[in-house]
């Protein structure tokens, strides 16, 4: 039996969960897209974090053979993916049988079957050893595969591409809103066999034993705390809900104990938070009504430039002469961009200007919250963007002098980590009382 403490952060774009053990060590985490349904997102992400927790248990018992566990995890994901594909198939055939498609039902059914037959091999390719996936979310992978196949199989005279898309769009909603329960327990057996068939050098008997133990372990969820944009939607009692400001402060403190200022740039909002030596928030500022300069803005720009979000930063870093951008207004972003491109300005130079403009907005929030006195920890989706980090580094240097700037590949979990720490404290306080 293991006591665990769970923190869930419901962001506007992604929902994250962290599982801590009794020593405050992170033993599991999960992330999913928030959809329009926070309850479901919370269920799914919690399940994912608990699955990951059991993998941690496997790791702990077989030692630090991360390669084997990674393979195991990948194969479990494949099993989950296949289960969701089966659900998708079922949902689509129900839609195809509906009144809307009566006129071409059998043709449609045929096309869907052909697509479906192609989906599983593609899925296995995604999860083959050494393969890279462009997303970890079922929705993204399945959609890409489906569109790829549908494009090939669609026939303007028969079943058109947009009809096929319509069926998928309707079906995926139902599928992704049903969590997979007890995934580890149900699927780890198959995943283990696939892993062993990949001929990794490992002790099969030891691995089987470790997996079996992990499967049977009783994880006792002692306390859960929810936070984030959608926290009010969580079916939790009030005392289990904490402001994301407080959670971000505590989470950043846990990751980098010398943090005194936290900057979080998420999809919808930007936060500047000051914390004391214990991670207690002493002051904070959020962006005003206008969401200019948040992550969502970069999303618009990426769409406008026909680039993936993660490609923006590296492209911006190729710039030699930065363009001065004055407005980070999401409403005008598209028009301004087109005008600049039509004037012959280079994409990378415009992007470099855009990144600086976004960070300038953040700088004014930082100033409003009390400035930067010591280590600054930069979190949120935009913290993964190297051009944004570089612009922040420059501007801090220019305005505050030399300061340590912390970033972490795990920074997206900062809020959920803080929430889990609050859960742990609440449980301790309860136990003490």
């Amino acid at each position, binding site marked *: 039996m293991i006591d665990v403490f769970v923190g869930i952060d419901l962001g506007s774009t992604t929902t994250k969960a962290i599982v801590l053990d009794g020593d405050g060590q992170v033993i599991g985490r999960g992330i999913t897209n928030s959809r329009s349904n926070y309850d479901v997102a919370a269920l799914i992400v919690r399940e994912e974090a608990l699955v990951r927790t059991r993998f941690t248990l496997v790791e702990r018992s077989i030692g630090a053979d991360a390669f084997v566990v990674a393979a195991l995890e990948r194969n479990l994901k494949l099993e989950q993916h296949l289960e969701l594909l089966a659900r998708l198939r079922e949902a689509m055939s129900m839609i195809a049988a509906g009144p809307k498609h009566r006129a071409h039902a059998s043709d449609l059914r045929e096309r869907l079957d052909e697509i479906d037959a192609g989906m599983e091999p593609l899925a296995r390719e995604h999860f083959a050893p050494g393969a890279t996936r462009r997303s970890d979310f079922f929705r993204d992978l399945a959609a890409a595969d489906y569109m790829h196949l549908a494009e090939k199989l669609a026939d303007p005279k028969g079943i058109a591409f947009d009809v096929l898309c319509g069926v998928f769009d309707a079906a995926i909603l139902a599928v992704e809103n049903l969590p997979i329960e007890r995934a580890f327990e149900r699927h780890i057996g198959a995943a283990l066999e696939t892993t062993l068939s990949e001929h990794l050098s490992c002790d099969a008997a030891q691995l089987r034993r470790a997996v079996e133990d992990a499967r049977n372990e009783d994880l006792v969820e002692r306390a859960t705390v929810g936070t984030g944009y959608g926290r009010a939607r969580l079916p939790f009692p009030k005392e289990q809900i904490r402001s994301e400001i407080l959670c971000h402060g505590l989470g950043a403190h846990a990751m980098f104990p010398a943090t005194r200022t936290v900057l979080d740039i998420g999809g919808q909002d930007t936060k500047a938070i000051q914390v004391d030596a214990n991670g207690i928030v002493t002051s904070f500022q959020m962006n005003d009504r206008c969401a200019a300069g948040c992550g969502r803005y970069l999303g618009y720009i990426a769409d406008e430039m026909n680039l993936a979000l993660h490609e923006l930063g590296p492209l911006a870093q190729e710039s030699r002469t930065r363009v001065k951008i004055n407005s980070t207004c999401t409403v005008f972003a598209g028009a301004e961009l087109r005008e600049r491109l039509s004037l012959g300005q280079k994409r990378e130079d415009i992007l470099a200007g855009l990144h600086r403009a976004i960070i300038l907005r953040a700088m004014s929030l930082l100033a*409003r919250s009390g400035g930067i006195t010591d280590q600054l920890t930069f979190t949120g989706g935009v913290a993964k963007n190297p051009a944004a980090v570089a612009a922040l580094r420059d501007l801090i240097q220019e305005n505050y002098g030399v300061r340590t700037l912390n970033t972490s590949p795990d920074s997206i979990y900062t809020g959920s980590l803080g929430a889990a720490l609050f859960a742990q404290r609440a449980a301790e306080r309860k136990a003490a009382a």
Partner: protein
Amino acid sequence: MSAIRKEDSMLLQKQMISDHYDRLASAHDEGQKVVYTFVPGNLNELVRSFGLLPVLPEINALQSGLRKKSGEYIAEAEKHGHSEDVCTYVKCDIGMLKKGNIGPTGRQLPKPDLLLLSYTGCFTFLKWFELLREEYGDVPVAMLHVPYQANGRIEPHQRDYVVQQMRTEIIPKLEQVSGRKFDEDRLRDMLRLSAAAEDDLVWTLESAKKTPSPIDAYFGGVHYIGPIFSAFRGMQSAVDYYTALRAEVQERLDNGQGPVTPEGPMGKEKYRLVVEGPPNWTSFREFWKMFYDEGAVFVSSTYTKVGGLYDRGFRHDPDHPLETLADYCLGCYTNLGLPTRVDLLEQYIADYNADGFLVNSVKSCNSFSVGQLMMLRQLETRTGVPGLFIENDLVDPRYFSAANIKNRIESYLQMLDQKRGVAA
């Protein structure tokens, strides 16, 4: 018994307002003239001394906000070419006018016989009445320019300037519109009544120094200032209202009770806050609830000083009628320089033993809002008390983002908790 008594002042005020609007509705039929004017630095006693009835477009606008009509009115004004960037009080008023000028009691408001443009603490007032002058055609305008207290004190020549304008511009026009001669004795009598009511108002506002505070000095406070900031200062009805209010608050004090909210008596007082800036009217109750649900009570506010800083000692003085009116105009909160405003808030935080302060920054009102971010930092630095900054509007429902505002309030109060937890 006491539950009924608590409603007394509320009912009394409601009756005063509805009587006033009724009188306005039939004013022209009864040969009664009306004067439109603004709340800050209004010359109610002077207007009333000529037997004229005041109409306050700001009050109409906020009433439209409370009645959820403002969104429609603002849209109407924007349709007529008014920019989305500018003050929504103005647009709400103009939209209401375009839609028939129906007042809060459902009856049409009379056209103005005089626009008394008391330009006090707000530049937009000037444009507002210029716009109304266009809308109403041939209405005379009396302009009273009240200079700004940039240095936190009234200079003698500023007072002279205001008094001179009353003598040469305001009084002659009031005489002309009313057909009556200026009666200084009558004005003195009214100023005497003003001062009596002002004493009780100050007593009420300062009752919040007690713990727990028997009043909410913001959400309740805006009701308490109603009669004295608007059409009733200088009238016996206002004196009666404040006598009743004082008795009610005294009773709550005696019983150790907190404020009364729309949902009944407030729970335990957990946080004492000071507030800078006007409230939001379109979601007034929802906004209040975000605080009282958490046990947060406002113990002092600057908004309740836009019609005079009575708590700093000012009283209307019947012995110097025009000079006292001039000082009154000059002394309104929004007519004070920013350093004076910061000093005042700093004192409130100390005097009222506040745990925190809120800056409710409204888009519509540059007079309040410009510089508030700096005020926030100054106050945090000087007092060590953390502030909360919320963006809002007066009557534009598009600017009240409930989820966002609630998020900030919750985060802020949890932060205060956490700080206290460490201190304890």
